[in-house]
């Protein structure tokens, strides 16, 4: 046998496994969003001073930048947070193999980044995640807030980065089959847990920011 015993596992992860994960992720996200939206929101009878809708939409974007002076209050959380998110999305969206997968799924594609850029992004994201984990241990506020679900989310977010690096660079031997399978399975774990954990923030942050902006916007207050 030229190939190995892990080939079937890899094939399952790439086909059936992926389909199951994608279905759970997309279906789960839809359910979770519906479950929020159906709770509704009472009509606001107070005469608006500002423009709730415009400011709500604006806040979806503007809240990506820390308010003046707040960065220095929690530098590890802010900087670590930025680097982790950017690193993760660079690796996810600009690796050639990922672009091919996305093209396969939705028909859209774009140019890829070279390996050095991707690997730098991955390395930085992993370091950032470690820094964020460190503050969850050491900082009293973060330690107070952190529960098992926060650790779970942190771990499942970092696993695809680590396993992807190992698989692409064949860290543990020339045959990368097993590690490629593990990489894909780790991504599928991320996908499956997405709707049921705080990973949902990647979708609902836009709703939360919109609501915040529209509440403040109605009053003509900043947000």
């Amino acid at each position, binding site marked *: 046998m030229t190939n190995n015993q892990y080939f079937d596992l890899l094939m399952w992860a790439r086909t059936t496994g992926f389909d199951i994960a994608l279905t759970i992720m997309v279906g789960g996200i839809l359910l979770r969003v519906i479950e929020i939206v159906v*709770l509704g929101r009472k009509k606001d009878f107070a005469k608006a001073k500002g423009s709730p809708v415009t400011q709500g939409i604006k806040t979806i974007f503007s809240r*990506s930048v820390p308010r003046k002076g707040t960065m220095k209050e929690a530098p590890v959380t802010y900087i670590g*947070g930025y680097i982790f998110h950017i690193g993760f999305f660079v690796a996810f969206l600009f690796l050639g193999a990922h672009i091919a997968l996305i093209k396969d799924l939705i028909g859209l594609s774009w140019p890829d980044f070279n390996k050095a850029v991707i690997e730098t992004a991955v390395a930085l994201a992993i370091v950032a995640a470690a820094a964020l984990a460190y503050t969850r241990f050491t900082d009293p506020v*973060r330690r*107070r807030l952190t529960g098992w679900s926060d650790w779970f989310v942190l771990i499942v977010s970092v696993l695809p980065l680590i396993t992807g690096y190992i698989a692409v660079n064949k860290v543990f031997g020339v045959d990368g089959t097993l590690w490629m399978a593990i990489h894909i399975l780790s991504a599928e774990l991320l996908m499956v847990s997405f709707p049921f954990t705080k990973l949902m*923030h990647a979708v609902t942050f836009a709703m939360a920011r919109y609501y915040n902006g529209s509440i403040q916007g109605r009053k003509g*207050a900043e947000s």
Partner: protein
Amino acid sequence: MTATLERGLNALREQIDAPVASFFTSCVSCGICAEACLFYKETGDPEYTPIHKLELMRRMWSNEYTLLGRAKSLLGLGKKITDDDLTRWETLVYDSCTMCGRCTMVCPVGNDITMMIRKMREGMSASGHGPKELVGAAERHTDGTSPMGDLTQALLKRVEQASKVTGIEIEVDKPNVDYMLMLSSHEIASGEEMIASVAKIMKKAGHSWTISTEGFEATNVGIQLGNRDVAANLVSRIVDAAIKLKVKTVISPECGHAFQAIRWEGPNLIGKEYPFEVKHIIEVLDQFRAEGKLTTNGKNGDRLTFHDPCQVNRRGGINKEPRRLMNMVAENFIETEDAGTMNWCCSGGGGVGANQRANDLQAKAFNIKKRQIEAVAPDAIVTMCAFCHSTLEDQLEANEMDDIEVLSLTEMMAEYLDD
């Protein structure tokens, strides 16, 4: 489960809506809200992390309004909210939060934590966990005309005094006027200056105005306690009075939560739009300024700074108006650090100042404001909220800084009116 616990949980359940669900779904426990909180900043105690103060509400949402939580509850796994939990959280929800709204401004995912504290207080008070001073004030105001009891006679006396001092006739309960002025009980208790100032300004601007003896008290303890029924009752007194007198605009006085109550929550508490406008006194003065009806002569030469009341600026949208007015009457106007939208609370808002149990904690929390005041070393602090006003006076005195005066912006504008 006791009846009061059940009532509390039902009241809390009623508060969970799409924004709340989106907020809890989005929270990643980053802890940045703590950095914006005066109680955390001045004590370093992680218990005071704003989102942690909402843990019970989050638990209810998770157990009853999420897919996984409902599945867990079916299996009897979700952690229930007990009366002991409510007792433990009472001090977090009432003593260590002035609902100042800074956390809402910094949350990276955009959670309106302050709004959720307001909602959580509905559950706390319904389950019998409201601070006794707020409950007492709610009872006195419901039975009388203000949280201090019946202030009608005191009001009439102040009106008479103001009339005498200014030589301007002030007619209460006068129908078909442009403006109906509300007052906070602090303003009535402390003297006739506010009424006299408004009388002078209205005369100068050429507008008719009145005070209703049936709805003059602007403060609304229902908002601070978290009791919609009390709050709605107090709001409807003003609405009824304004409709009866057919006024065009109701003026919310220099009081932060009163403005929040009558301007932003009021229409929702009574479930309909008002047939009149509501404006904060400083909005009215700024409008007069823009229309050229408010002209002044001379300026105060002292070193003056301005304190932004959270409910008026950050949560009320009035930021530039007082500064335009300050510049008309202040020669040496100097802003503190973070002035404006991100100003730090006076430490007494949201019912904290009335809650004796919170006194020591409040005194600690004031230190951030104290340092900012010390840094600009003003002769006086000008503000536009009667409660911030008296809190600042009390805390400055406790810190032996009472050589710094506290002034009302409305009264200051009246003082410099040109004749």
